[in-house]
């Protein structure tokens, strides 16, 4: 598979030339961004809301152990079983254990990036449990055998024609490219799955410490059904999703939908506290898996831990000029785009995700749009420094910077070097940077430097 972070550049070159992909991306992104401006500008206190959200997240992450314990205590009291998973293997095995216990055959899944992160669907399928994505976008990428290309709009890279073809191939229906009809086909197909599922798996947008609640925000109703119909519900989520109070939701309600899908508010919010026995449509058992999987690596760094404030809205991806051009798959990571380039190294290790922090012009649009004010572009710089510290840079780059540094730290040397380069230029020797020059003319030295002119003027 070429979709790994180390193939970023190759993937990017291909994506840049993929006219169809770029058309699909541009359509989806420009639509969402322009709508977002509309729904954000309605709120005069947007900046204030961002600040509040930032502070709530900051406070929680600073006291994460406390709030996780509190959540566990309250949720346990509500009758919910909590499991803390160190990594994806522990999480997957725990899910399998529950699935085996209840003899599950069919599992319905609502949208959850954390389950993508640990590869849960594939794992359950390998173990003979049919697992179906029920969010329309996720369902489309599952049928196509792909990864989501955006965390809240998974099938954004596909056109209606491509989806129509996919449906007729995989579901044996007559080709149509009408979104209404395609949606209806998915509804019919998935309705059957909902009614027969024994296990429902969801993520969580928030966990509320004071009440032990699981909060899931969505538009289609699939999360509502996945957490209602099957007798067992497992919510898998990252440890960073906990927030202190129920009333904190008021802030996040205002920013999440607007940032994720340019909506004032999503169609559905489920706040789940406890399981119910003897009800035809309520889970009898609820489990919450709190996943670490590299998140405490971020917690260790005073600066990088900001990345844990992320509420997974995906706005930074949409606004990023790099993502806009190459799409989510190019990154080869579950979380693409700017925030993905911070989260992925924490999960895979920086060596395997080395290119990602460098794949940014550092324009800062990600920070500008981030509803919880994560300084994503600065975190990328932090990771670049880590990469150099760990010795991951190429020998050539190291050599160039070594020489550059020697020259820059001594202005006399700098002046001599400046003269020497001009001497070379006179001899017809010009510096060349091949990678730069394909589409751009490499800038040339001025006949005289400013320093030289300044000196001459003075004397």
């Amino acid at each position: 598979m070429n979709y790994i972070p180390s193939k970023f550049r190759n993937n990017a070159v291909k994506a840049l030339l993929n006219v169809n992909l770029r058309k699909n991306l541009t359509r989806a992104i420009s639509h969402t961004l322009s709508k977002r401006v509309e729904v954000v500008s309605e709120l005069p206190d947007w900046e204030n809301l961002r600040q509040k959200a930032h502070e709530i997240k900051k406070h929680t992450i600073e006291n994460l152990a406390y709030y996780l314990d509190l959540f566990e205590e309250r949720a346990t009291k509500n009758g919910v079983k909590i499991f803390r998973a160190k990594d994806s293997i522990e999480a997957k095995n725990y899910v399998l254990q529950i699935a085996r216990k209840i003899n599950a055959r069919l599992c319905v899944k609502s949208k959850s990036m954390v389950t993508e992160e640990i590869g849960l669907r594939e794992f359950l399928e390998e173990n003979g449990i049919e697992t179906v994505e029920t969010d329309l976008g996720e369902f489309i990428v599952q049928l196509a055998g792909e990864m989501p290309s955006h965390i809240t709009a998974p099938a954004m890279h596909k056109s209606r024609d491509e989806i129509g073809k996919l449906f007729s191939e995989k579901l044996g229906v007559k080709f149509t490219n009408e979104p209404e009809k395609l949606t209806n086909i998915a509804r019919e197909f998935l309705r059957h799955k909902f009614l027969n599922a024994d296990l429902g798996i969801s993520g969580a947008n928030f966990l509320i410490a004071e009440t032990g609640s699981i909060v899931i925000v969505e538009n289609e109703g699939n999360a509502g059904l996945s957490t209602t119909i099957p007798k067992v519900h497992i919510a898998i989520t990252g440890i960073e999703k906990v927030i202190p109070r129920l009333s904190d939701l008021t802030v996040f309600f205002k920013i999440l939908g607007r940032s994720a899908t340019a909506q004032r508010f999503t169609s559905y919010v489920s706040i789940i506290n406890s399981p119910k026995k003897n009800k035809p449509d309520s889970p009898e058992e609820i489990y919450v898996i709190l996943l670490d999987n590299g998140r405490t690596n971020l917690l260790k760094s005073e600066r990088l831990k900001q990345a844990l404030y992320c509420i997974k809205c995906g706005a930074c991806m949409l606004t990023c000029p790099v993502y806009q051009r190459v799409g989510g798959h190019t990154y080869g990571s579950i979380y693409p785009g700017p925030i993905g380039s911070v989260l992925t190294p924490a999960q895979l290790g920086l060596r395997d995700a080395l290119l990602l922090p460098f794949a940014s012009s550092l324009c800062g649009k990600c920070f500008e749009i981030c509803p919880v004010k994560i300084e994503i572009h600065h975190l990328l710089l932090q990771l670049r420094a880590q990469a150099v510290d760990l010795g991951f840079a190429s020998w050539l780059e190291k050599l160039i910077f070594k020489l550059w540094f020697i020259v820059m730290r001594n202005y006399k040397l700098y002046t001599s070097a400046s003269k020497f380069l001009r001497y070379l230029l006179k001899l017809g020797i010009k510096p060349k940077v091949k990678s730069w020059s394909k589409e751009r003319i490499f800038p040339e030295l001025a006949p005289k430097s400013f320093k030289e002119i300044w000196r001459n003027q003075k004397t």
Partner: protein
Amino acid sequence: MKIGLFIPCYIDQLYPEVGLATVKILKRFGINFEYPIEQTCCGQPAFNTGYWKEAKILAEKFIQIFSNFDYIVSPSGSCVSMIKIFYPKIILTEDLQDISKKSLELTEFLVKVMNIDSTGAEFDHTVTYHDSCHALRELGIKTEPRILLRNVKKLKLIEMENPEDCCGFGGTFSVKFPEISSDMAKYKVNYILNSGAEFVTSTDQSCLMQIDSYARKNNLNIKTIHIAQILSNF
């Protein structure tokens, strides 16, 4: 009030005319400034590529050179943001000696500190302004250059579509990911062309370098000019 003039290394080497234009403006307003000859680079290329140890040494040197000034002024939003925003990330606050507070990009200095809204320049052309990412998003400079440009005699300022979109330079990004970087330049160049302006200007010559490099390679009729050159045309 004593001003230290900081001419970034790439302006020194590639675009000395931008430095001279800055000097001309400062002189016009009788601003007491000095150009410390021992200055080289603020360290940004190293910092942005991850060589923080090297950047830190250059930053310390920079601070030493510029510590005796009331303000440090530079015709580059990007290099000023290195000093203002990024030095505090590599140097302990007590060693910074207010250097980050004292550093200002040229247009910001003219408008905010000197209360100047016109340099008395004349420029009989249509001009569009490109917001450099560092000036805009790190330093919050948006209105200052526009105020000064609007008050240039005969100049007509035309806003392009998406003036805030990145030109794609990004320092080492443009070398590590030339294809993406060039594609970003392509879009920027189109916005500029569509604006119909004769010139594109900015607080940052590095953006203009990227735009010019792309435009020339592709034989596009775009003229770049640093804002200091327009503002010093008196």
